[in-house]
């Protein structure tokens, strides 16, 4: 493997043994690999520097526990994949508050919805499987362009689908009201 030259087990072992120069060399060589990887996954964005930094921190901190120096690649890969997951999870929490015209998002906790818990399954069942998939991926933390890649579509088509999902859920709500069903509460919580 190509990586065995740059990240040979001798270098890893030296770094694990406390050789600061070896450790510095190791992290220095990892940096461009991580940069190329993260840019490939999320594009050239400010988040890339954070992802690299945090992944290097993970590698640095976990190096001492790495039992087999040959497994550095696996270790670095998992660290990078973990970081991406953390990025997705944290992505909308702050931004949405800034972008949302209605201010901070609802927490949907029973306490804050007047004691009525939103019935997710019921609300989502009003949607087509594809629309449901999009909404779930969106709430998982993916951008629309990423969702488009994931389900083989275009960003514009995804947004259109979300627009239709909104209209469908809205109409479903109206029909429930017309029918006098208390299920309205399950959809809207209030």
């Amino acid at each position: 493997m190509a990586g065995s030259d740059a990240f040979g087990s001798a270098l890893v072992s030296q770094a694990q043994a406390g050789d600061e120069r070896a450790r510095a060399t190791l992290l220095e060589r990892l940096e461009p690999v991580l940069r190329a990887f993260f840019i490939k996954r999320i594009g050239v964005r400010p988040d890339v520097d954070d992802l690299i930094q945090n992944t290097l921190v993970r590698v640095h901190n976990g190096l001492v526990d790495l039992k087999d120096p040959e497994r550095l690649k696996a270790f670095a890969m998992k660290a990078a994949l973990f970081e991406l997951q953390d990025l997705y999870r944290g992505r909308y929490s702050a931004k949405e508050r800034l972008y949302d015209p209605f201010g901070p998002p609802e927490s949907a906790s029973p306490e804050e919805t007047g004691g009525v818990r939103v019935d997710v399954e019921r609300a989502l069942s009003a949607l087509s499987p594809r629309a449901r998939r999009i909404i779930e991926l969106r709430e998982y933390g993916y951008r629309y362009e990423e969702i488009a890649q994931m389900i083989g579509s275009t960003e514009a088509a995804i947004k259109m689908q979300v627009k239709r999902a909104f209209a469908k859920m809205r109409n479903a709500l109206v029909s429930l009201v017309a029918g006098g069903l208390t299920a309205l509460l399950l959809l809207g919580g209030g």
Partner: protein
Amino acid sequence: MSEAFDPTFFDDAPTPEARRAFRAALEADPALAEAYARWRRVRAAVRRSLDERVPDRHALVCYALDAQGRADLLTAAEREALDAARPALERAFAAHPALRDVVRRIQAEADDFEAVWAAEAAATTPRAHADRPSRRRPRSPAQRWGGRIAATVSLVLFAAVVTVLLQRERGMVTLRTAEGEVRLVEMADGSTARLMGGSALTYAAPTKGKGFTRRARLTGRAFFDIAPDRRPFTIETPTALTTVLGTTFGVRADDAETEVVLVTGRVSLASRQARERVVVLEPGQRSRVAADALPTPPVPVDLAEALDWTGLFIFRAAPLSDAVARLSAHFHVPVRLAPELAADSISGTFGQDQPLEEILRTLAATLTAEVRPAEGGGFVLAPSR
């Protein structure tokens, strides 16, 4: 349905104009506003359900690798944790089918990592070897480590920082504040620290033609605004290392505990003793590191309250009503908010020694609003006429 908001409403980052248009559409159509509010609740509930069903996304990564035939990449502990998590993950897949897409994406990410590793490692190796001898600076006896400094260097986080640390203590300056004194420290890279009373900050003095050492040592309390840079900035405290790129955050530290509250950006926090565990803070979160303990899991906090000791009002995407209530209580002056602005959020940092009216006028400017004297005293914040 109104067409005014449709295309931009679902953008990842709508423009201010799009937001205004959407808000106007909602105000003009109460039924639409109601439907939108419910839509948001459903979305928030989906998010909460995902968080509850997949509390540890790292387990999902392990699941994806295992399902891809890459179980050999997992450690024994990870395999054990995955086996324990598997039933819950299967239930999560049933409840949220899109999690299968997430698994496929993780697997694609793993494929990409393999490809990039092979290509980049091969491309960079010869150059790295060739460059190394000429790039390293000779170490003078004065730069060698001894005693306490050697203990610190073992905790260094990054390669770039390792080199920089060799010059530590030379060219460093220490600023101490008296009780009740507040000093604004400007560092050579543009970063600032608002150093509170009874604190000490050691940082690199400006040097001619040399890179600024992105490192500081704090005892006491300071609010940092770190200038963005590729090189990480590390704050050492008696119990922790806080590493950032460009961000704003507050640190309170004594020999027993370090508390970090993050306002913007991202921060990595590690105990000085237990290097294997790093906690990453998101904006609006707090973590603490006690001596000989791991960082506590980040918890969300009210920034204005948690950072009140900074002598600043710090609002980040804060409901305008909360911000106004806080200002009103602090200055003991009634401030009324027009109903049209009740749903707005604001971000901003103000000194607590600034006049109230000045702060309100700044807020108003960002909201296309104005400040008017209220009958009977105080102020009214209302949309511009």
